[in-house]
């Protein structure tokens, strides 16, 4: 988040004066200030109202609900930490967190490697039309909804009739049980998620590479650094803040993976692709266990916050700020 603040504030072409540089208080200044204060409150009030009712209150409500047992019909009953104790012993839930972590790890690594690789290659193209063509091409999958992607990819990855296995077998390769085996379905979910999302990471990296100061690259060239050396020693360190940001965003999204496994595999085969969000959906909206569902949601939030924290701590030595 901090890096987005930087990117937005740094390119300001308009000089910003210090707000302290003000005229000495004149008579009636206090009334003017109060009027400005009221104006400010009025301006933020619509956003504050909606954010409070539909985000802030629900965050607290989720925390409170996780301490209750509630089936929507009868009155909620306070159960203390029972939901969390039950969760810690619930094999289905624990398994789903494991599945989520494995899928998220696969998605984040593949998405970053592909996004960075493609961005570096496109950045080397010199013709503007060539850059524009690849940028548009890699962005196109983002124009489909995740639901649409899950639908057509489901047909393409069909083990018997799918076009992917058709080409694999006609090349003499074995057909892969994409959606009918544990590892196959996990791999499929990772592949289709990265296929769609990679354009997002790619665009971020292209922007970072384009805004790279050219004098640094010239200096590297004068010192005799080859393309690979320049990439590893100069370009990657220079865009490391963007890499950190892209990692965190990709991770937060991947930990909430729902649409693709829900539509393509219904969490299966068995529980192979039952992610934490699917288990939460089943607990909350199919079994109407709102308290238990909230507890799962809170644990998911804690895990996301913990991983984000770990990434930031690990990045301290790796990220290079100019």
């Amino acid at each position: 988040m901090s890096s987005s603040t930087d990117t937005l504030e740094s390119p300001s072409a308009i000089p910003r004066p210090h707000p302290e540089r003000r005229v000495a208080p004149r008579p009636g200044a206090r009334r003017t200030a109060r009027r400005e204060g009221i104006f400010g409150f009025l301006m933020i009030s619509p956003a504050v109202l909606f954010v409070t009712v539909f985000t802030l209150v629900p965050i607290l409500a989720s925390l409170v609900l996780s301490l209750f047992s509630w089936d929507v019909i009868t009155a909620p009953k306070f159960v203390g930490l029972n939901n969390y104790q039950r969760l810690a012993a619930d094999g289905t839930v624990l398994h789903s967190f494991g599945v989520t972590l494995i899928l998220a790890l696969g998605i984040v690594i593949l998405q970053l490697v592909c996004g960075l690789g493609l961005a570096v290659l496109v950045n080397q193209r010199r013709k503007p039309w060539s850059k524009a063509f690849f940028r548009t091409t890699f962005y196109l999958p983002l124009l489909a909804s995740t639901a649409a992607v899950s639908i057509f990819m489901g047909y393409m990855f069909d083990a018997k009739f799918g076009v992917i296995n058709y080409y694999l077998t006609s090349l003499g390769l074995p057909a892969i049980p994409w959606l009918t085996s544990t590892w196959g379905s996990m791999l499929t979910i990772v592949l289709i998620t990265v296929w769609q999302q990679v354009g997002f990471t790619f665009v971020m990296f292209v922007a970072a590479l384009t805004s790279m100061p050219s004098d640094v690259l010239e200096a590297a060239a004068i010192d005799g650094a080859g393309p690979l050396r320049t990439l590893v020693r100069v370009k990657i360190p220079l865009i490391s803040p963007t890499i950190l940001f892209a990692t965190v965003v990709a991770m937060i999204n991947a930990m909430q993976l729902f649409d693709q496994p829900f539509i393509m595999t219904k969490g299966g085969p068995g529980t192979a692709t039952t992610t934490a969000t699917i288990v939460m959906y089943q607990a909350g909206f199919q079994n109407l266990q709102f308290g238990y569902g909230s507890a799962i949601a809170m644990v998911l939030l804690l895990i996301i916050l913990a991983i984000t924290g770990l990434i930031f701590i690990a990045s301290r030595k790796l990220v290079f700020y100019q």
Partner: protein
Amino acid sequence: MTVSTVTPRRPAVKIGTIVGIVVLVLAAMVALGPLLWTLTTSLRTPAEAFTNPPQWLPLHPDFSNYAAVFQQIPIGQFFLNSTVVTALIVVGQTITCTLSGYAFALVKFPGKNAIFGIFLATMMVPLQTIIIPVFVIVKTLGLSDSIGSLIIPALGSAFGTFLMRQYFMQMPPELGEAARIDGASHFKVFLHVYARMAAPAVATLAILNFSGFWAEFYRPLIFLQSQEHFTLPLGLVGLQGNLGTGSISVVLAGVILAMIPSVLLFVFAQRYFIEGVTTGSFR
């Protein structure tokens, strides 16, 4: 511009360049392949839709699937629902976030930093974490199983406020001060001086909201029960479920239809899609 042109080892660089182009072209084929397959298969007759090899060039396009979508599901209704939901959220957030973003950037009022800090903190919380209480609130307000359940909770946004604030922060406060001295009210300064300069940020926010809410599946799945209120993604998944594998070309025709507005918008406003990514969106 790139280093490779300056290095002395020319032949190696050329091989590297060729490998780079080959990789890019292969990646472009992977990116476009599934979309092309979807388009061409939607133009095959239901009977041959699943026969391999696929027809990459639709030599004998069959448009009957597109008519069939309209007969088999109320896709017109889904289109209408998606359009109303997306349009009202885009307009609503443009208003609430422009007002609040401006105030957080350029108006002085007590508690400003604390309130903005709380806004920023809520951006970290995933939708899944709050969906159960939001569902209860929506139900309490009598909005369950209506498109209002999708629209009203999305009319304000901490992220949108943040995005607009960042943009207004770049604008000089003197402009407004000068207009104030000339006797303009606070609101007139906002409306006539600053709001018109914010068009690029408004466009970015609108595009981000369009792509997010047009494609949304999770909230519609939870909030809506009757088919007449379904939005496109939920309706398409329902179509797939009802038809099984018998007529996938019909389902794919629906997928293509649902993508048309996004593609059209992308053609005309590509800049703002890219801008949306680079300003650090949280989809």
